[in-house]
């Protein structure tokens, strides 16, 4: 709450560089939340979230540019299509017992298939992509049109809603059932969890959510190209934030994006200035390894863990019991 109020106030004073940087941070945090929901709560790995991002982006762009319809409608249509595509992909995959990492590989294949399809589809601009017409006149919430500061607030609002929705889902029966399914699928079935249904549901919700983020990203960027909006790069960028910040938590994806994206920008500026290109990727890698090594649950759980007592740490006694269990 405090964080969002502060970010909203700061939005009024930040310079344009910070505004545009943080807008991207928020949008990737928002898309990261959808990815984190799917893996962190539902236990389903996606390495092809660009598929959903791209569907959302193209829906907004096509309806706006070709038909002059409000981006709100584009967001709605895009998330409906992405939700349906997600459900279909999950249904087919889980029907034939394609699980875990193999499902992840299938999502890559689906995203790459969509990218190639859009690249060759003249109606949506093919390789040349689509360009939004130049901004004219006042910013308007109805048409989702405005300057950089306007989009800053839109993106911030989206992340805030995303945090709220994640927290609500975590507290609802879905949160419990999904976490049980993630921890042990067969044991949760023995407790009556209809895992097939819930797996399809979580992929579909995550896809619909990511598509909204993709639509907003298209508006902010002003242009979309299949190679960038549906490429592997997007799929990777989407998943690094939540891993760094804390999978499945309400704030993790935002914290992760706040760390990783500015770092990336800083390091690429730095590597340009000293003339060694690619230093940003090295820094990226180091941060990722450091987090996985030292804070395997992510930055956010480690932070709140400090405020709580050490109750959650397993006692030596229980570790002994675990060892005994292994021996049995």
């Amino acid at each position, binding site marked *: 709450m405090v964080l969002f109020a502060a970010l909203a106030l700061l939005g009024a004073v930040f310079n344009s560089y910070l505004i545009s940087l943080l807008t991207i941070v928020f949008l990737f945090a928002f898309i990261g939340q959808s990815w984190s929901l799917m893996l962190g709560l539902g236990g389903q790995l996606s390495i092809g979230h660009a598929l959903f991002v791209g569907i959302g982006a193209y829906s907004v762009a096509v309806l706006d540019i070709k038909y002059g319809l409000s981006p709100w409608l584009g967001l709605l249509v895009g998330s409906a299509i992405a939700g349906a595509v997600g459900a279909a992909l999950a249904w087919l995959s889980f029907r034939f017992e394609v699980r875990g990492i193999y499902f992840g590989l299938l999502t890559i294949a689906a995203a790459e298939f969509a990218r190639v399809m859009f690249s060759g589809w003249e109606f949506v601009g093919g390789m040349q992509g689509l360009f939004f017409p130049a901004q004219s006149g006042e910013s308007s919430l109805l048409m989702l049109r405005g300057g950089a500061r306007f989009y800053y607030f839109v993106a911030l609002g989206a992340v805030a809603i995303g945090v709220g929705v994640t927290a609500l889902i975590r507290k609802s029966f879905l949160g*419990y059932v999904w976490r049980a399914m993630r921890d042990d699928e067969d044991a949760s079935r*023995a407790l009556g969890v209809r895992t097939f249904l819930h797996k399809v549901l979580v992929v579909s919700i995550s896809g619909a959510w990511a598509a909204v983020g993709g639509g907003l990203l298209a508006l902010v960027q002003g242009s979309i190209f299949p190679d960038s909006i549906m490429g592997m790069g997007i799929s990777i960028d989407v998943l690094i934030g939540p891993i760094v910040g804390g999978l499945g938590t309400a704030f993790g994806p935002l914290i992760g994006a706040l760390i990783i994206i500015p770092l990336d920008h800083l390091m690429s500026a730095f590597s340009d200035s000293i003339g060694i290109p690619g230093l940003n990727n090295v820094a990226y890698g180091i941060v990722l390894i450091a987090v996985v090594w030292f804070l395997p649950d992510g930055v956010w759980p480690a932070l709140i863990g400090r405020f709580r007592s050490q109750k959650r740490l397993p006692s030596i006694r229980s570790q002994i*019991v675990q060892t005994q269990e292994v021996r049995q």
Partner: protein
Amino acid sequence: MTALLELSHVSKRFGGLLAVDDVSFSLKERSITALVGPNGAGKTTCFNMIAGAFRPTAGTIRFEGGMISGQRAEAICRLGIGRTFQIVRPMRDMTVLENAMVGAFSWTRKVPEARETALEMLETVGLASKAHASIGQLTLPDRKMLETAKALSTRPRLLLLDEVMAGLRPTEAASVVRVLRRLVERGLTILLVEHVMRIVMEAAENVVVLHHGAKIAEGMPEYIVKHPEVLAGYLGDGFRG
């Protein structure tokens, strides 16, 4: 006497191994039945077929008159059969209470209702004081009781317990038996797999003995411990006492 669960001529083959061979028995309502036999006799395989984890190769399983053999595990749970796993399977990233709540979500979507039921079941098995502990803090006997509480939260009419009393001290086991008796008084039917013959004698009204996948005897505990084939194949001569 109505049979709550009825296995008739059930077999399960894994490749060349006949794990369960033409087994028939039935459970009457509000009773405790024990399934005993040496390791590899097919007890857990029987459990897995009843609970829907495996599909029988042959034979039928009926619950409250309806065919359940071949149905999915989650469907069978929702029909009213709760189970525990011999190798405990807690959800490690969830607290004891959260673990127990999952079962309740098979019949409600209301979180407070699920929490209330889960607490009640933890109370029943004597884990209420550890409701907010993490799984890592539980001892192995505690984890077995958590498995029981999880299964109870699904509000079953039939409870399948797979060696939940293994590793308990005799006094602890006796208190678990008292808990089971109380559950039966409240209308539950229990099928348990157990190795400790003394517990079986104390708890069960009916005993089914499996050996090499086949049923070799069935009856009251007093009858079973004198049965010549059971003595030869499982208990050994020492039990003749």
